[in-house]
């Protein structure tokens, strides 16, 4: 098996040149890693279709950040469906995600996170990509939804909008290793029982609970009970 990769340095150089409006800029060339068949070739048409769909949609939704967030959620489930069949060794190689970012998601990233967005949005701030990298965070959003439902045709959880909720309180924290706790948080948030004003404090309380409790072993009822308790405590402390 072989697959395309983009090194951190070449991607950083390209982004720098792009931002300086250098006329010489070329997208970083994908360097093949390994030998044999490239599994990405099987899904390239679907990736292109996904990007084409996005380009058609942006004309309708304009510059609304709420609409952008909604669209990212919808595309997350589609991206997960397209890429989930790839070998795990590809999906856990940061240089592969930099290739996906540069080849397919560069313009999308600028649109989503802004022209002046951080290098991390491209997966180009450090050797390992993190959850600020747009396609990587979208894939993991789909993965979390799939872990909750275990049904590739039902990834509705990925569509629940909430930029800060997803980034700061699900993807970036260990809580998201627990499908039941992720589901409980998303259920409460969707139903309006986890107001934006308290989500940060609740997430902090959950982090403290996690020091003593292994969230991965909890079922949904148990996770929901812990979450409800933390929400109540937080609301009470804020006199709401």
């Amino acid at each position: 098996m072989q697959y395309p990769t983009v090194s951190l340095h070449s991607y950083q150089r390209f982004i720098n040149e792009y931002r300086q409006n250098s006329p010489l800029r070329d997208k970083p060339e994908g360097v093949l890693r390994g030998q044999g068949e490239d599994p990405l070739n099987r899904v390239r048409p679907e990736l292109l279709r996904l990007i084409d769909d996005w380009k058609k949609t942006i004309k309708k939704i304009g510059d609304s950040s709420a609409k952008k967030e909604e669209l990212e959620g919808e595309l997350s489930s589609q991206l997960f469906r397209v890429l989930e069949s790839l070998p795990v060794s590809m999906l856990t190689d940061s240089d592969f995600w930099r290739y996906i970012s540069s080849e397919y998601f560069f313009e999308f990233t600028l649109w989503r996170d802004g022209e002046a967005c951080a290098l991390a949005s491209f997966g180009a701030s450090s050797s390992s990509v993190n959850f600020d990298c747009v396609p990587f965070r979208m894939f993991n959003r789909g993965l979390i939804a799939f872990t909750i439902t275990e049904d590739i045709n039902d990834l509705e959880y990925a569509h629940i909008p909430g930029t800060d909720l997803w980034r700061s309180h699900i993807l970036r924290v260990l809580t998201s290793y627990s499908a039941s706790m992720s589901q409980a948080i998303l259920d409460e948030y969707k139903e309006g029982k986890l107001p934006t004003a308290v989500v940060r404090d609740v997430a902090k309380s959950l982090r403290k609970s996690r020091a003593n409790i292994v969230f991965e072993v909890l079922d949904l009822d148990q996770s929901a009970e812990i979450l409800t308790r933390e929400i109540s405590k937080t609301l009470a402390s804020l006199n709401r």
Partner: protein
Amino acid sequence: MIIRSESRTIRPFEGLSAAENIFSRTLLVIDGKEYEPGSLLLPGNQVRTSNLTIKTSTNLKEVQQACSDAGVPHKSARYVVFARSRMLRKSTIIYDHPVDRKDFLESIEIDRLAEEKLVFGDQSGFEISAALILWDALDKQPLKVSNPGTWLGRARFRIRPESDFSSFSPLHLDKPTRERLGLREGTYSHILIQDDILLLEDLSDGVQVYLDEDVLNLLLQDESDGMAKAIQTQLAVNTITSIAQCIAQELKASSKALEDVSEEIGASRFIRKLAADSKIAPDDLLEMAETSPNLLVSLVESRFNLSNAIERLLKEN
């Protein structure tokens, strides 16, 4: 009026010493070699293909006694082995054994092919934990565990590849990068540390080390060269001391003690490991980083005078 707030991670339970003792003896056997809990650096192919076995170093009678000491009925507790992918948000439970059932496995072999591929196929590493866990809710009593999921004892093994690029491998410092970082021409090296370092589970996500691109290219040509080793050593010393200073400053700015920072946070593991290797208390190390940075530099230089030792320390954290 100055308001000072503190938060501490506490385990407000009694009767856990037997469980803690059990898990201090838990071992991970990798291709026949035994490892104690902590961070383990392995060759990349071993991360991907090695045979893994949890050696519990205990028996059912001892596990049941640990439950009794904690006031937990045997039917309400389980011995659990679970694992997490390092890069993807995926975890899996490999083994969960009710403590009132007889067929307890003292060695738990992990069948990598049958287990979750997104966890054990992660080429950037994974984490395996063994724990004794309260499975059912119990009536609340002072100093007794009662919430389901509460662990009585736990051992964690973090497996990382030796060639872990996500550690502190230096990045090229070229003209555009200098401009982007606001550095002057001729800057030779730069260590960039994010200000949310006390929140990062993986410290390397928040630290970037830059080295002049020509120097870095020379280094990469022959890393075993004497000069290359000296440069690497100096860079590693600078990186370690800068990170330690930054952590000390952030703790002070947020009025926190090291105990307030969960062991899941990379900064906590970093300071504890550096302090242990330097044979001083973590709090003393932090005070030194804050008040006598030159002494800290000397300490790091004297303790880690070999580049490979420093590199190992960096990669482990």
